[in-house]
């Protein structure tokens, strides 16, 4: 076992060596999001190229830097120059960058996002000045994308475990005080003040206490915790050490969902490294504090993110929540006082201990201190994992960081908190993002998911999507959730199918109340939130679906009819050939007609109609929606290359038949 | 032996069984019934003839599992045989051009009125078929009845689909609205048929109901199926099964029907080991 002091020394050396490396280093983002974008191929190609050229160079796989829409990301260390971050680096681009930038002098500006550290001096700005990064304050995510998550030296070199060592120095009581003064609130959903949660547990005079890190992250579209664990696992584990010290817990579990294999692998590796450094086990670093850690994999149940269900799962029982009291802090795992903490909450602890509560509380609002990560997704130009001070407005996030609407259409709403949260209408974009403001607006901060929608998203369809999720994940124990969500789903389906009457809206309202008030646990209690908020901000959409059989977003297929504009249609027969229901009648050269009673509303005709004609349009209720004509060259309406090809094909086929 | 050519559960606990019985199919008329024995040791049980196909030589029954014998029957599948089948029994319904005929039905009755509806329509009547079920999932034969009748109305007791309420509520509303009904025929449980009679009596509309007393020989000898209709004691097998609703002694019929309930329950209750084994074997090969 290496002594910690030695480990720090060698880590610093190692890190320095990297900083001043005389050979090029390619840091490629290879966490799950990067791999999903193809960084695996990029890595293969890069390595092959390096080998082929017999180059002296290092390739390091890192975690996620944040701008997921620009993945694969690659940071290049070219000796003698500031490091540069490149985006959209596929295999071909990686080779280009190697050739032109590393071996040559070309800055490869077309992929450059910015330099890391100081300005590059050649005109490209710094990465932190990139419009997506500018409004962010990356504290918890500071290491992500910049270190090799499997190399503990990197973590140690950047002050890893200093927070824990400080905690050992000052003792559990002081740690609690620091956390109280920092104002840290739980980042899992409810936002309960962390120190107070710990206090309840500390005050039980039990012989055994447990700390559980909740890495179940079940919200669809949420990936904050996954990203953090994959990119910087030790940040979370150090947090667990600190929390356990404060609580007097001698055993901890990381409950990680089985759908995160890379995160689990990283955790396993990190835990082994901790053990080797003497940071786990009996009498850690001679302090008298003993603590050990185990990973417990989830098994595909969203409900196991709920505290009592999670505890049941670890105990080997079916994950069904229990009524509370007793609260887990008093009687939890195996009947002992247990604290369950979110991944991000824990990752904040090393920062508080290292930098002090004043530093921590300098950012944020009165009631919501510190920063918070969000998984920004949806109809914005720049999606990814961001970290901002609490109190940042939705507008700042959506427009500045996110770059605004991805296709120029006005933003309709922002959905926060996943299936437990709600839609906040665009008129509230200046709302500061903090616990209280979001709650007042009818939503919740939740785990950090943030989905931006525009007019092409139907609010009713969105609510239906979330309800079908919660209905599927309901554990089945209590009728309000198990049956209530199914009943709400039934009504929502009738609404989107155009079969609902006005009394169905009243029934939906009443059911939402019954489910919210009657359910046993948070899953059921918050399941109606998407419905309640969309009915609050977009009630007119619901009414339009019911009264005019109209879907303004043209999403709800049963309410949308496809038609052909005779004035625009030149009769190219592209749609006739592609219609699976054989519902389009038309001869070459004559305007085609869609037989509505046969039409299945699949939309194939719409997608195949050449943009030069844009003859297929849609009708829903009283609304009509035409597509824009995009003439490529010559007069408006002139055939494009694509449509000419189609025409040629059609002629060929006609000649054959 | 009589082969089952088609068998399916059309609604929970309601089974459609089509049996090859050419001699019966040839002579079957609306309102009649058959008696069958599943095997050599079975009870003789009467079932209404819901439909028949004279060319194919088949008869259609709609059966609900209510006891040991009906359970044996509904456990059979297409290709299995029924040991004995005799019919058609009972007095056929009068089929003439009456004008407007309303058929009210519930439970197995929904199947029972199919053949009647066709015949009434063929005779030139305007046929209104009104079917009721506890809930939407208990309705069946919708397409068949819609085709056979001029007007088809569905009700559900719990309001889960279409009109909330009973079929005879619809009949009552029609009569109250002045619609002229020349004949009402009701087939369903005792309670429903009793209500049918109560509803139409003040309006003086002739109402026929299919009575279902216990029955043994079915040819008028044993007297088990006697029912009190007005001043008379008649036999359901040879004088019925359809009788004037306004004259039936309902409480007597109800009491007589449960006279052997203890034995019937014993028959079902005595753990019939063979049936569960058969069912399990069925489930494995199904």
């Amino acid at each position, binding site marked *: 076992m290496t002594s910690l002091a030695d480990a720090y020394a060698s880590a610093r050396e190692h890190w320095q060596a990297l900083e001043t490396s005389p050979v090029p280093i390619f840091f490629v983002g290879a966490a799950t999001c990067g791999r999903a974008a193809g960084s695996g191929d990029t890595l293969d190609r890069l390595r092959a190229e390096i080998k082929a050229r017999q180059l002296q160079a290092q390739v390091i796989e890192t975690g996620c830097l944040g701008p997921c829409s620009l993945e694969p990301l690659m940071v290049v260390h070219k000796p003698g120059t500031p490091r540069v971050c490149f985006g959209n680096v596929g295999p071909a681009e990686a080779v280009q960058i190697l050739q032109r930038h590393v071996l040559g002098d070309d800055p490869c500006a077309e992929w450059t996002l910015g330099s890391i550290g100081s300005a590059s001096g050649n005109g490209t700005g710094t990465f932190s000045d990139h419009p997506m990064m500018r409004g962010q304050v990356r504290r918890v995510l500071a290491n992500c994308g910049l270190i090799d998550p499997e190399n503990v030296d990197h973590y140690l070199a950047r002050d890893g475990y200093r927070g824990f060592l400080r905690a050992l120095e000052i003792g559990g009581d002081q740690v609690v005080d620091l956390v109280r003064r920092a104002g840290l609130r739980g980042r899992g959903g409810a936002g309960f003040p962390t120190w107070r949660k710990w206090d309840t547990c500390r005050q039980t005079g039990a012989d055994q206490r447990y700390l559980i890190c909740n890495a179940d992250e079940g919200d669809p579209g949420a990936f904050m915790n996954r990203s953090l664990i994959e990119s910087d696992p030790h940040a979370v584990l150090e947090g667990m050490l600190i929390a356990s010290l404060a609580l007097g817990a001698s055993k901890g579990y990381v409950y990680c969902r089985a759908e995160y294999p890379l995160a689990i692998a990283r955790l396993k590796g990190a835990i082994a490294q901790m053990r080797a450094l003497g940071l786990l086990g009996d009498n850690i670093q001679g302090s008298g504090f003993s603590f050990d850690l185990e990973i417990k994999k989830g098994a595909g*149940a969203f*409900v196991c993110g709920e505290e009592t269900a999670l505890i049941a799962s670890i105990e080997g029982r*079916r994950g*069904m929540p229990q*009524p509370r*009291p007793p609260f887990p802090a008093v009687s939890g795992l195996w009947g002992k006082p247990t604290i369950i903490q979110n991944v991000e909450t824990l990752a904040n602890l090393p920062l508080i201990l290292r930098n002090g509560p004043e530093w921590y509380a300098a950012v944020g609002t009165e009631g919501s201190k510190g920063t918070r990560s969000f998984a920004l997704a949806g109809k914005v130009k720049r999606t990814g994992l961001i970290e901002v001070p609490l109190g940042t407005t939705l507008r700042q996030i959506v427009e500045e960081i996110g770059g605004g609407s991805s296709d120029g259409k006005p933003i309709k709403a922002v959905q926060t908190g996943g299936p437990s949260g709600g839609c906040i209408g665009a008129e509230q974009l200046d709302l500061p993002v903090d616990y209280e403001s979001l709650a007042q607006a009818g939503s919740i901060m939740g785990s950090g998911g943030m989905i931006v929608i525009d007019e092409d998203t139907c609010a009713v369809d969105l609510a239906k999507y979330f309800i079908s999720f919660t*209905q*599927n*994940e*309901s*554990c*089945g*124990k*209590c*009728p*309000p959730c*198990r*049956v209530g969500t*199914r*009943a709400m789903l*039934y*009504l929502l389906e009738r609404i989107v199918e155009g079969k609902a009457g006005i009394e169905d809206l009243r*029934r939906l309202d*009443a*059911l939402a*109340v*019954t489910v919210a*008030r*009657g*359910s*046993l646990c948070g899953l059921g209690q918050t399941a109606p939130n998407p419905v309640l908020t969309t009915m609050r901000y977009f009630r007119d959409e619901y009414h339009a679906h019911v009264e005019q059989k109209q879907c303004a977003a043209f999403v709800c297929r049963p309410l949308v009819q496809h038609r052909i504009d005779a004035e625009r249609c030149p009769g190219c027969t592209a749609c006739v050939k592609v219609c699976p229901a054989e519902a389009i009648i038309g001869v070459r050269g004559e305007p085609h007609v869609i037989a509505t009673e046969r039409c299945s509303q699949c939309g194939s005709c719409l997608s195949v109609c050449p943009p030069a004609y844009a003859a297929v349009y849609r009708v829903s209720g009283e609304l009509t929606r035409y597509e824009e004509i995009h003439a490529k060259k010559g007069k408006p309406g002139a055939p494009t290359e694509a449509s000419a090809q189609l025409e040629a094909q059609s002629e060929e086929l006609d000649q054959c038949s | 032996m009589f082969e089952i050519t088609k068998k399916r559960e059309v609604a*929970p*606990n309601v089974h459609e069984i089509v049996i090859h019985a050419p001699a019966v199919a040839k002579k079957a008329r609306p309102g009649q019934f058959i008696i069958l024995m599943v095997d050599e040791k079975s009870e003789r049980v009467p079932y209404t003839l819901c439909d028949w196909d004279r060319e194919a030589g088949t008869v259609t029954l709609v059966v609900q*599992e*209510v*006891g040991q014998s*009906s*359970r044996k029957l509904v456990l059979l599948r297409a290709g299995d045989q029924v040991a004995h089948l005799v019919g058609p029994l009972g007095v056929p319904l009068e089929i003439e051009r009456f004008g407007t005929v309303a058929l009210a039905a519930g439970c197995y009755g929904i199947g029972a009125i199919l053949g009647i509806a066709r015949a009434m329509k063929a005779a030139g009547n305007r046929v209104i078929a009104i079917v009721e079920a*506890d*809930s939407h*999932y*208990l309705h069946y034969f919708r397409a068949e009845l819609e085709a056979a009748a001029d007007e088809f109305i569905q009700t*559900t*007791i*719990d*309001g*889960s*689909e279409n009109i909330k309420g009973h079929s005879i509520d619809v009949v009552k509303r029609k009569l109250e609205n002045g619609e002229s009904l020349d004949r009402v025929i009701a087939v369903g449980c*005792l*309670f429903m048929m009793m*209500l049918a009679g109560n509803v139409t009596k003040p309006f003086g509309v002739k109402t026929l109901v299919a009575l279902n007393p216990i029955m043994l020989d079915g040819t008028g000898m044993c007297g088990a199926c006697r029912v009190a209709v007005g001043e008379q004691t008649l036999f359901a097998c040879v004088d019925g099964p359809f009788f004037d609703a306004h004259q039936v002694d309902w409480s007597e019929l*109800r009491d007589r029907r449960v006279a052997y*309930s203890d034995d019937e329950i014993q028959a079902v*209750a*005595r*753990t*019939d*080991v063979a049936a*569960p084994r058969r069912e399990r074997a069925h*489930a494995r090969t199904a």
Partner: protein
Amino acid sequence: MQLNIDNQTVTARSGESVLQCASRHGIAIPRLCSHSSLPAFGACRLCIVEIDGMRGTPASCATPAVEGMVVRTNTEALRDLRRGILQLILLEHPSACLVCDKHDLCDEFRPAAAKAGRTTGCHTCNNKAVCDVRVLADELELTDLPVPPVYRNLPLERSDPFIDRDLNLCILCGRCVRICKAQHGRGTIDFVGRGSQTRIGEAFGRSLSEAGCRFCGSCIDVCPTGSLADRYAKWYGAPSRFTATTCTLCDAACAVTVHTTAHERAVAARGVDPRVPICVLGRFAIPEFLNGTRRLKTPQIRVGSRLRDVPWQQALARAAEHLRPFVGDGFALVCDTTNTLEDRYVLYKFTRDVMRSPHYIELQPDARGVSRAGLPDGVRAALLTGPFVDHERLQQLDLLIVQDCYATATSELATVSLPVAVLSEVAGTWVDGDGRMRPLRKACRGPGTAKPDWEIISELARTMGETGFEYESAATIARDIGAVGARLRIRQTEAPIAATDPSRRRTHFRGHCLDDHVGGLSELNGVEPALATAAVGG
């Protein structure tokens, strides 16, 4: 400690829940999943209340009573919420009858449920007479449902012994799962699946027998709907009488409550203490055994090669006539200890004083309940109370009189065959395996004109001109022999060994193989049922 519930000051015991405290003070809170024998589960969400200082609507069953709590159990808001929750429960349970506008009229016309394969409403539900859900629907004034209900059409589970299950009626209160775990510590059944697919089942689709079910019937006892039912008793509705007596199928002598119908037919037996299970024999075998179709119902005498039904007087006269020549040690009487003390006293007295024979043979059944004996060499006439002796030996006798409950190969050999009332058809005193006296109380009528053993023998003695056999009742005999102070064995803590270990369960009673007369048992023991054939067992 003191609480305020609905403006009433009540005193709570330490460890009590709000629900328990309220119940004790006569404050009724609607509930479905809570049960006095089970720890709180908090699933049905009907027992919700408002408590000052607590968020939302906590479940009173799972909330410990705390000093100074202010609780409201019946506000308008709570009633509305409960009604909404009950409506949701009823979306997955055939509920049309509960919202039918002719509900009362129909109940009046035909109060009892009619039997059916699948239950599609209260009218065909085996639970109608005792259903908690119906009571609740009434209490909460249910009139309609918010969306169309769903019928899941799950297969009926009718192929396990004794227990019928219709999962389409299950409201997922979890009581069955909980009581099985509480009483047996094993998860024979549990919640399976989730969301709308949730149901109760065994792991890996096994049957109950395959999953190791002990068939104690406790799950049926706690099920609030007709979902779990005792196949034998389910269509009899509410029993008209409950009689606490002792099960004499083995020497554990568990106290059982026998349920009888208006026709005095025993249809079910249950353990007296709901927290402690009894074995499958006490729970399920008694009614089937008593109601078997091959019970001896009338006295019979041999005429030629056949046995003919005759009235008692005639049979006893014939028996007396045949017995007289064998007074002395050529006669033997064989019985076993399944007989009551009263029976055995009278049987002994008859052998000693009337037949003046030393051969009173009282058998002690072995661990499996089998009683077998030989007859001493000089015996040429015998009276047996069961098939205890080899057929060959019996064929050598000049006279055989049998008084028994079921026809057997033995009774087929008899000159006179007399029908006996057994188990809960008789009153008396019985001795259990620890030598303690237990009371038997008469719960139901025997078949035909069957009588208890002591009564038959007493009448026989009197027919033979003897005095000293004028007993009016078993109680009279009990007083005579000093069999007083018998107490029911109500087990407070442990289940009888036969309930947990099937290999320790008896297979025979009074010489009869129980498998032959209780179909579910033969199924359970993997034996080919004798019921299926016409063979007469022995």
